[in-house]
Each structure stands twice: as C-alpha cells, then as structure tokens.
C-alpha cells in the first residue's frame, strides 16, 4: 500500500498531462477533418468516422499504459535485447507476409484490423541502444562497438526501407542526437550536418555555379595558406571531395531515388512548378495553413482540410487542420506543447541515475523531436514530404500505441529511478 502511494507520487504527472492534452487535441482535430458541414447529426463518437476509431485507440492506449505501469521496471532493462530481437523478427516477418498498402509492405492485416510493426521498432531500438550503451564502457572509442551500435539502429532502418517505407526508416537517424549526448564526436555529427546542407545547396543552385564557387574558394584559401603545405593539401582534398559530392548528388537524385521520392524533393524546391502534380500536397497544405490567419477559422470551420484538398489529413497532414481552424495562435500553442513535452523528457532523462534510463530517455526525446520537426516542417514547406505522423496527434492506432509505449516506459523507469541506480550499483 505504501509502495503504491510512492509510485503514484513518483510518476511524472506533468508529462502525463501533456500527453493527454496532445492526444485529446489530436482527437478533436481528427473529428474536424471528417466533419461534414452538410450533416448535423455527426458525432465525434461515431465509430464509422476516424474520430470514433481514434477514441478506441486512445482508450486502448490507456490499457497499454496500465499494463506498462504494472510490469516490473526491471523487465525493460533485462529484456531489452529480447524485445529488440522479437520486433526485428516481426519486421522480417511482415516483409514476407505483410499486406501491401499504398506502396509499402509494412502492415499486418487481421480482419479489418491493421497494425504497422515498424512503429514499435522505435521503442525497441531505443531500449536496445540504451542497453548497449549502459553495459559497454567507452563505447565510442572502439571501432567494433561503434559498428555494433550502428548495426542496432541500421537493422530496423534497412528492414523498413525494404518494406518500402523510407520515411519511417529515416527516423533512426534521430539516434545521432542520443549518441551526441553520450559523447559521440560532435565533429562527425557536424560533418553529417554539413553534408545535408551541401545536399540541399545542390538542389537549389545549379551544379556549375557550385563547382565554380568551390574552386574559387579553394584557390583563395590556398593563396592565403601557401606556406603551410599540409593545410593546402587538406583544402585541395576537401575541394575535390565537395565537387565529387555535388556531382554525385545530382546522380543520386535523378538515378538512384524512386520517381515519387524525386518529385517530393522537386516539390520542396519549387511546388509552384507543378501545383496539380507533385506540388499538390505541399501547395494545398500551405494554402490550408496559410488561410487560417492569426486566429484561425474556428473549430469545424475549416474548408480546405474538410473538402479533401489536403491529402492524408487525418494522419500525416493533421497539422493543416490545426493551422487552418486555429490559426497562428493554435499552431503556436501546439508547438509550445511539444516543446514543453520535449523539455520535460530531456529533464527526466537528465535526472536518471542509470545510463540505461538516461539513454532511453534521450532516445524518446530524439524520436519525438524528429517526428515533430519533419512532420510540421513538411506541412509548411520546409522539408520534403516524408510520410511520418505527428506524435500523439495523428490518426492511427499503430502510431498512437507505439508512441504511448515509447513514452510511458520512460515514465515507468523514471518512477523507479532511485531503485534503478541501486540495481546498477549492485551489478
């Protein structure tokens, strides 16, 4: 009895509140999407509507939360690899027996019920990464452990790419943030960021200009550093590699990427070039959000999302409904909620005494931040269209369950943080 009270007191209720606020706001916005102005008798509880079904996902999520809270906190640490291996097997399984929906073979369909296992691979990978980092000291110093760590996040990513769902696979790049926090060289991360910037530049600026700019810069730098032979060589090598990357990006975009991926990148660069074709999603999404104005059109008053101008509105483009019906104020509120949640999670992560819980906490933060950035970024035209949901907000059972599990395992670990330290200290 006393233990029970302690647990209730130790649970981070602020985070729980943020979670439920996001889930409920998401639910209301899903109803706004399906709401038909011409029908007055529509209910948010109607099970034929997405909003009614989302309510079922929300209620079952509560069941999931209860289960997570009841399971012993040591389970997640002890069985991290088992859980990871199990989910990887399921991913492999879905690749063979899964149902193909909208071009990706990433679903299990049992009757009318569909489940996307790749959603659950995120928390499993988080657990595995946490486990590996907590049981191996100086992990970033040996090549072998680096390869293993990379393998842990690459395995689900590759399996998911094979399923044809590149968007979800990209999420695993978010673990870079976790590694950074755990001491991975910022230089390498910086190099990664620089590559991304270069990649973007090649998309926006004609190849020839870039090459000329690189050559000119290289000669200027060499001119300044003529006396330092080593630096001249470094500059020359760097210049040649940059030019190599610039040329290969063009090759990559036009020859390696699939046509739909190419067009998503083209849409990002210039959606107006083909507003009815590849630019449609971005164009319509921006129109919906942009038409919301400062205060928004009001709950259920949106027209763009309601009349199907924005595709995938309940799921990936749910933010359009927020932007249209609740304006800049509503969008800002949502952003603030997410920032608050992310801060909460990083705070929780930082206060963990065990490496396992801390790493897992940062995994949760990194995954949520990635989803949040990419999802909203794509709806307002800052990122290419990558079909990943807005956590807790978008319609969909698999994603809501997966994010719930992801978050509440952390909260469970957090509630037992003093005990975890003991355990780590003992072993």
């Amino acid at each position, binding site marked *: 009895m006393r233990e029970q009270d302690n647990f209730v007191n130790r649970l981070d209720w602020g985070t729980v509140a943020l979670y439920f606020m996001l889930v409920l706001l998401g639910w209301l916005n899903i109803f706004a999407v399906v709401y*038909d*102005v*011409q029908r007055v008798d529509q209910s948010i509880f109607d099970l034929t509507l997405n909003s009614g079904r989302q309510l079922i996902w929300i209620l079952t999520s509560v069941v999931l939360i209860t289960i997570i809270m009841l399971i012993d906190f040591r389970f997640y640490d002890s069985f991290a690899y088992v859980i990871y291996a199990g989910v990887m097997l399921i991913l492999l399984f879905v690749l063979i027996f899964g149902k193909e929906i909208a071009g990706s073979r990433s679903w299990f369909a049992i009757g009318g019920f569909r489940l996307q296992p790749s959603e659950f691979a995120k928390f499993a990978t988080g657990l595995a990464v946490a486990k590996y980092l907590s049981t191996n000291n100086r992990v970033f110093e040996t090549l072998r452990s680096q390869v293993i760590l990379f393998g842990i996040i690459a395995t689900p990513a590759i399996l998911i790419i094979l399923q044809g769902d590149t968007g979800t696979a990209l999420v695993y790049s978010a673990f870079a*943030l976790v590694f*950074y*926090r*755990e*001491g991975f060289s910022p230089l390498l991360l910086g190099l990664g960021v620089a590559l991304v910037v270069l990649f973007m530049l090649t998309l926006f600026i004609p190849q020839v200009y870039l090459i000329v700019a690189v050559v000119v810069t290289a000669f200027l730098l060499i001119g300044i550093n003529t006396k330092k032979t080593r630096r001249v060589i470094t500059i020359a090598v760097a210049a040649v590699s940059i030019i190599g990357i610039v040329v290969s990006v063009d090759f990559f975009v036009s020859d390696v990427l699939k046509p739909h991926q190419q067009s998503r990148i083209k849409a990002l660069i210039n959606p107006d070039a083909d507003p*009815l074709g590849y630019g449609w999603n971005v164009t*319509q999404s*921006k*129109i*919906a*959000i*942009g*038409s*919301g*104005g*400062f205060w928004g059109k009001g709950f259920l008053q949106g*027209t*763009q999302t*309601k*009349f*199907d*101008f924005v595709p995938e509105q309940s799921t990936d483009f749910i933010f359009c409904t927020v*932007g*249209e019906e609740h*304006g*800049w104020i509503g*969008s*800002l509120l949502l*952003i*603030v909620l*997410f*920032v608050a949640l*992310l*801060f909460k999670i*990083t705070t929780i992560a*930082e206060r963990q005494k065990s490496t396992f819980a*801390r790493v897992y906490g*940062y995994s949760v*933060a990194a995954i949520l*931040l990635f989803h*949040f*950035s990419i999802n*909203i*970024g794509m709806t*307002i035209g*800052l990122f290419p269209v990558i079909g990943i949901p807005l956590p807790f907000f978008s319609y969909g059972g698999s994603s809501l369950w997966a994010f719930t599990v992801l978050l509440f395992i952390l909260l469970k670990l957090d509630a037992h943080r003093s005990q975890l330290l003991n355990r780590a200290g003992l072993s």
Partner: protein
Amino acid sequence: MNKNSSRKYVIRLTIILVAAIFALKLFALQVLDIEYKVKATSNIIEREVRYPFRGLIYDRQGRLIVYNEPVYDLEVVPKDVKMEDTLAFCALFNITKEEFKDRLHKAKKYSYVKPSVFVKQLSNQSFATVQDYLINYPGFEIQPRPNRAYTRSTLANALGYIGEISKYQLQRDSASYYRQGDYIGINGLESMYEDELRGKRGVKYKMVNVRGVEKGSFKDGEWDTLSIPGNNLQATIDLDLQEYAETLMQGKRGSVVAIEPKTGEVLTFVSAPTYDPGNLSGREFSKNYGRLLTDTAKPLYNRPLMGAFPPGSIFKTVQGLIALQEGVITPDTRFVCDRNIIACHGPHSYTNLSEAIEVSCNPYFWNVYKRMLNKGASDNTFVDTEIGLEEWRKHVLSFGFGATLGIDLPNEKSGYIPTVSLYDRIYGDNHWKFSTIYSNAIGQGELQIVPLQMANLAAIIANRGYYYTPHLIKSIGDEGKPLEKYREKHYTTVEAKYFEPIVEGMANVVKRGTGMRAKLQDIEVCGKTGTVQNSQGEDHSVFIAFAPKDNPQIAVAVYVENAGQGARAGAGVAGLMIEKYLQGCTDRTNIQDYILKGDFIY
C-alpha cells in the same frame, strides 16, 4: 556525473531553434501572406451562373410567338471521368465507341480539368431519359443552353435570332455584362430589345470539395443573387395575318408591310422569301445559317427595311398632296393627257386630280410637278427649279421619306429624296432644270423609298395627314404601358383637308381602276398601284392601300419584285390581306389562287 552533461543545453537549444523557425515560418504563412487566403477561397468556391429566362414575345392578341426551350449539352471534365461500361454509355447517347474515344481525346486536348462539350444539344426528350443514368458516369454533366423556340414558322425576318456573342460584341460591351459563350440577340427584335429580353443573371456561390462535389452554399448564400427573367414583349403583329401574308408571298421576292394607321402598329412584316425561324435556333444553327447566307434568293435580307426602290406611281399621291398644299393646283385643276411630254398607258383626255390618281395619268403629274418646281420665284429657270425642289423636298421629308422612320428593328435604310446638291453634282450647278429631273414626277428617277415607308405613306393617307412611328412592340413587361416614343403623332406638312381628293381617287382605283383585284364586296378599299420600271428585268409590282375608306383599320404596302404591273400581284395580295384582317377570311378564291400560283423568282 556524466562528462557530457553540458551537451543537454545544445540539445535544448536545438529544440528551441526548431520551434522558433516553425513559429516564424507559420507567422509568415498565416499572418503576413494573404495570398493563401485568396487561394483557399478560390479552391472551394465555385461560381455558378444562374441564367435567366429570356423574355417571351406575344402577338397583338396575346398569342405566344417566341418562347424558350432549353437544349442540353453534355459536358465532360476528362480528369473526373471514370468509365466502367463504355458500351452502355455509348448506347445511351447513341454514339459509337470510336466516336466516344475520339471526343474524349479532343476534350483532353482542350483541357484536362475544364469542361468541354461532349454531346451537343440533346433534345428535351433524350435529356429526360439520360438524366437518371448520369450519376453512374462521373465527369459528365448536363449543361442547359438557352435556346429559342417558335409556336409558328413565321415572322423570321422581324424576330431575328440569338447566338453566341462575338468577340467584337464582347469588346464593345462596356458594361461587361456578357461573358464568352453567352447568348445574345443578333438580329431583329431579339437584338433591338436585347436589354429587355435578356433579364438579369444570378450568381450562386457554392462550396465544393477537391472533386468538385457540392458541399453547400457559401456563407449561407449571403452573396448569392437570383436570376431575374427577361421582360416579355407584346408585339403588334397579328400572327394569323402574318402567316397568311407569308403564304401569299411564297414564290415571290418582295415585302408586305401592314400598319394600323391609328397607332402605327405593324400588323404584318413580311420579307419574301423568308425562312423558318427555328432554322436559326438550336443544333443546326451554323449549318442552316451558312445555307441561308449563300441562298441566291437572299432570305436573310430584310427587304421591308433594307430594299430601297423608286416608288413608281404610288408617289403620285404625294405629288398631288404637296401640290394642293402649295396651292399650285386645286382638286379641280385639269391637264390634258399629252403623251408627247411623257409616256402614258392610256388616253385619259382631260382629268382632274382625283381622276388622274384613279387612272394614274403621267402627263398630269408631269404638269403638277412642273408647277411645284417652277413657281417663278426667280427669273432664272435654273435657280427657280432649285428653289422649287428645296421646297418640294421639305414636304416630301415630312412624309417620313429620305430618313429612317425609327422602327424598332435594326438595319433600317433611309431611302433617298434627291437634293439640289445631288443634281449639282451630277449635272453641274445651273446645268439642270425641271426637264432634267421630271422623272420624279411619277415616282421614278432618283427617288429611293423603302417598302416600310410605302406602308407608312398608306397610313398617312388613311389618317389624312399624320403618322405614328411604325413599331412592332407595343409594350414591355406583363403589365407594360404603351411605349411613349410611339405615342407621338408626326404631322405632314399637308393639311388634312387636301387629302380627300386623293382618297377619292384611290377609292376609285380599287372600285373601277387598276386596283380592282383589291376590291371587296362590303368594304371600301382605297389603293394605288405602281409599276416600277426595272432595267434588269420584269417591272416591280407595287401597291399601297388602306381600308375602310372612312375610319381606316389597316394600311398596307406590297412590293413584289419582277411581278409586272402593280395591278397584278401587288393589288391582289393587298386586297386579300385587307379582307383577311377585316373579315377573317376570303371568298375570293380565284384571286387567292391567282396570287398563290404566281412565281416571280427567276
């Protein structure tokens, strides 16, 4: 403690940075840029034009002449087409599979997202059968088009027709009422009363989803306007008489205009040969229009208004009237029928004015005209003639000649009454005198008169000196008052008392002279024949008439090209028309047969 714990600040900074970028970008998108609001509105709002019903046209007895019978075009929006059973569709619209493919291809070439006509002008009947099936064929939609229909195949030249507005008309439409593809009155009453007939377009703003499916009215219809139907027109035409006149004029080239003298209302307006007004309405428009345009008999040429001819002997009535008013003769003035001065068809010895009208004596009016032109105002005979011509011309113009009368139809010609300057141009100043221009005396020479003006002349004589502007529309709207502009009496310069001898003469023309084919048992008809010399072929037959002599109800002018003397076709047609109008039918079937047999188009 963890050696990398300071990195949490970098991570938090990253979070803040992302949030800040989003907030700023959203602010730019939602608050600063208004373009998206405009685009959102244009996304969901579809402007549906509600076309008003065009006004109807009734005849003087309230019988319907022109009404609306919308035809339906089947339109296709290629991007929405989802065809499952092409064969059933083809069967429904009675087209072959090849035609289907061909038309869809053409539509795609025009536009993938804009509607284009797939099947033109379904009849009312096929529209009804097709309507229920259309729900199965997304991308296809029925579009009503305005279309005129006619209760009887008559009056085409006066009614005119409607058609798609031309580029030129669109440019001239300063009020920007019309749009590309709108229908507009192109000729006749349809064009003259376009502003009345067209009504007012309404607009409905409706919300549509991305597939164009209607999702209710925009802002609860706050901006919507109803269409206001066009005004109905009450015509002055007597449909029965019109139809009868057209029957009589079959196989002839010319015109018949009948006017109610007391009001100026046009009872009949025939341009022969004519055409079926239904030909220039609906699906066969362009085909028929081309055919009518190239027809050598020129059915589209509006003869009562556009043909200008020398009037011939009917003009002698005008000469007599002016001479009386000028005082150069009295009703009792007699002249010898001297065929040395001008040819004449019979020796009439020594007639007075009435008798001269009756027998149409050329030398008599030669003398009358000479007295009018040479009144001795100047010793110089050239100058004297000029003064005489000027004065004479003023009188002539007061009869509505030499200028458009202002009938409510387009393309009215003015005709021509010769001026001093004309003759100065032809012959040189002081190089012409009465003997140069005497042909005018008997309605030949340089005189040009439009058939409508001839009918108006008949009305003037019937009224003994005045006329109302001839018109085809009495009133506008269902309870419209008579149009004010047609209530103004136009007096000639000749006083009423001078008309009697002329009327007397005209009565005798019909009673025992050249107009006997117009003679009726119980009604005293007054008429005057004319035979217009024609260098190109057979003479034109002209006849003006009114009846009854006292309290006239109808004035009529008949002009039949190449039909010989006015006594024949002209008088026959006029007589039958008067009889039909005043008595309802004719028992003079011999005359009717004679006229119907007459074929003067060659």
